[in-house]
């Protein structure tokens, strides 16, 4: 049984078919056993958790959430029918309820490209002000869901205080990028004083579809902090969520879905980076890769594939604390990584 002892709630792969979860449940007879789940120890936190089962007592039994990927504005399972399991981290060395998340496939990646591309022209042509309003709405939705997001982070192993800090920082990060939507132009664009009777200017435009490998940690702030600088510039993206905590990414997607953000602008896949990223790096309709914490052979493979269609590849590996540096993570340089510069010449003269 491939159940991880990780304290960080790392996801574990299982065979397709009768997964360990099902096996455990099969061993536990009776309604009460089913309700209390596989692990003996229960904290109050586990009971309120979205997927945590309550101990058997006269009262209400919670309804568990099925975690799905977010593609083209819809919540979908993997076309492959495969899944990963994520354990609830109760305390160091001790895991709680196992939950299933989809294990995205190459075909899921290609579907996401289609969905993202369909959204690109609409999103990039929206008024910058309107994009800002939508991202501000996202900040509102995240703030309203802050308790749920905190709970999700706690279930993946964070302390309550760390979870609160991360969600707060994520809301602020979103707010800050909402503000950038109609401002970075005035910093990137230029009037070029060319010799001769021409009016010559350079303007930033979106690069297109960006594939983002979200950092493993911080699972929420790293996700938000890598998505926002990409979409604020009018790009669309496909994000492969943290492998350590994919559940929080799905909960974040639920905020996206209620934020007026058009479907397809952000697509979130769960699964193995080493499985989903290579086909995306090869895909001719992807314009750029934004790799956070990808390293070694995988990074080399992705960069190599990217060269076939001259994708822009950006990679960085920020430490957890670095993601919490609001000023460093909201500089316009984060946006400039994914804009193209267009120069326009126009004659000027009677």
């Amino acid at each position, binding site marked *: 049984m491939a159940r991880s002892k990780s304290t960080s709630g790392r996801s574990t792969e299982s065979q397709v078919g009768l997964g360990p979860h099902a096996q455990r449940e099969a061993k536990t007879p009776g309604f009460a056993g089913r309700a209390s789940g596989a692990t003996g120890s229960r904290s109050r936190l586990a009971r309120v958790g979205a997927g945590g089962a309550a101990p058997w007592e006269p009262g209400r039994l919670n309804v568990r959430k099925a975690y799905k990927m977010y593609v083209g504005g819809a919540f979908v399972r993997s076309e492959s029918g495969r899944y990963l399991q994520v354990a609830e981290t109760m305390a160091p060395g001790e895991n709680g309820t196992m939950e299933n998340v989809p294990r995205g496939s190459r075909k899921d990646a290609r579907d996401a490209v289609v969905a993202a591309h369909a959204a690109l022209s609409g999103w990039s042509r929206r008024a910058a002000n309107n994009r800002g309003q939508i991202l501000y709405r996202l900040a509102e939705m995240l703030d309203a869901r802050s308790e749920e997001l905190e709970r999700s982070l706690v279930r993946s192993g964070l302390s309550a205080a760390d979870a609160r800090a991360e969600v707060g920082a994520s809301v602020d990060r979103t707010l800050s990028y909402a503000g950038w939507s109609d401002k970075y132009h005035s910093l990137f664009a230029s009037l070029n004083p060319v010799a001769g009777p021409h009016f010559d200017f350079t303007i930033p435009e979106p690069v297109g579809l960006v594939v983002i490998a979200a950092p493993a940690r911080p699972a929420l702030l790293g996700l938000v902090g890598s998505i926002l600088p990409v979409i604020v510039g009018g790009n669309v993206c496909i994000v492969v969520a943290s492998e350590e905590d994919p559940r929080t990414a799905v909960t974040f997607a639920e905020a996206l879905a209620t934020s007026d953000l058009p479907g397809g602008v952000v697509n979130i896949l769960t699964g193995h980076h080493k499985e989903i990223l290579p086909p995306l790096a090869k895909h001719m309709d992807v314009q750029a890769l934004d790799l956070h914490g990808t390293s070694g052979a995988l990074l080399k493979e992705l960069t190599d594939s990217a060269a076939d269609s001259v994708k822009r590849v950006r990679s960085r590996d920020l430490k957890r604390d670095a993601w919490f540096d609001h000023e460093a993570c909201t500089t316009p340089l984060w946006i400039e990584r994914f804009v193209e510069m267009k120069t326009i010449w126009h*004659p000027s003269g009677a």
Partner: protein
Amino acid sequence: MASKAPLETAPAAKRQRRTLTRPPRAAVQETAIVRVGDSGPQSAVQHTRASGARRGTEAALDFGAAWTYAPSPEATDHVRIEPRYELFIGGSWVKPLSGKYFDTTSPSTEQKLAEIAEADERDVDRAVQAARHAYEKYWSKMRPIDRGKYIYRIARALQEKAREFAIVESMDGGKPIKESRDVDVPLAANHFFYYAGWADKLRYAFPGANARPLGVAGQVIPWNFPLLMAAWKLAPALACGNTCVLKPAETTPLTALLLAKIIEEADLPPGVVNIVTGAGKTGSAIVSHPDVDKVAFTGSTLVGKRIQKALAGTKKKLTLELGGKAANIVFDDAPLDQAVEGIVGGIYFNQGHVCCAGSRLLVQEGVAETVIRKLRDRMMSLRVGDPLDKNTDVGAINSKMQLDKIRELVESGEREGAERFSTPCELPKRGYWFAPTFFTHVSQSHRIAREEIFGPVLSVLTFRTPDEAIEKANNTMYGLSAGVWTDKGAKIFDVAQKLRAGVVWANTYNKFDPSSPFGGYKESGFGREGGRQGLLAYLEVE
């Protein structure tokens, strides 16, 4: 509701008001078309035939009774105007030490809407002290992104209360509801939204500079865009970390006071924004208060000069957005129908109470006659009347004083020999009204070509070459804005670069956006509002 009475006009009377009376036959052509150019009425006749409507000397366009719309008044039953408004100082509503109140009235009905506190020097002093305290205790110490969050709250609440603000703006100021609803209020909300986002990004706005707030800003705004001007002043000041004492104009204080209510409901720290009401004396008390670090004024050039003198020798920073006499230049290769829309929007928008109004039409000789005919035809379809009617194009003149000023200047135009055309629309009996008007045969020395009329009055001049157009356009003490109409891109850029004006609209007019800097050259003032450049008015950068 204090304002209900004015809306209960008899339906029959309203309908009549909105009906456009057909001009007397022939008179229109005789006066307006034939005399303009040298080439006679030929093209006018062609137009009449082409339109297939009438022959001979009849008006080219006559919609008759088909042009009569039923009244379409905006519902006002959800809007509540208090009988009396106090001063908003230090986060609470306080009675003025002056003990005095003045009335604000609706210019379309002459009915009193509310009583407004009149702040004297002591009241202004209290407001400045409250702003200073708030600056030192809260606003300058707050995380920049949290300052932004407060400003976003204001933007959101304005969006949520948008219709109420539009209605009150139209009641108090006389502008058509479609303008207050579709222009003033959304732009004001967007302005707060835009500058809220700058609060945590000031270090990037001017790289290498250490940008710091100035302290207490004293802000005095005009009556033509009461809420929008309040937004233009407050939003950048707050985003940059300053606290504010704002005085709305005495004829249009209501929306600024409703904005104070939003600020109160948004839980801004007390004293960050203070709204004091009153007339010129109150404004002068703000400007000359020793503890004000920055003065921002929008209004007439005359008063602007006085303020600049009053501040001479002090360390106060100053920005001024003053008058204008913008040239709207139409070349013979321009898309003429589009240009005519732009001319109409340029001068009759907001009854011409617009500092950047395209009040001088410079039209190339070859198309002058056609443009003037099309302009007159288009003007015949303008609906003048009840600002709260959703079909109204031109509302009420803001005040009796302004109406007198417009009349005086129009009389001077007639006296000096220019040819006047006013649409023959029937104006309501009560309230302050002026029919959309233009003058032909205007020379550059006429007062109507030099002075800002600030009303729905256009002066038409002609030119032969682009150089002559530029020469005439720049022949003014003002330099706020200009318009260029031509199909030739190269000409647009060439002329735009030679015009001495802070804003140039090409094949469009009167466009505003929070991300686009606005402000004047020459005696139209200095400093820019909007965009990254708008931050400079409220920052110390070194």
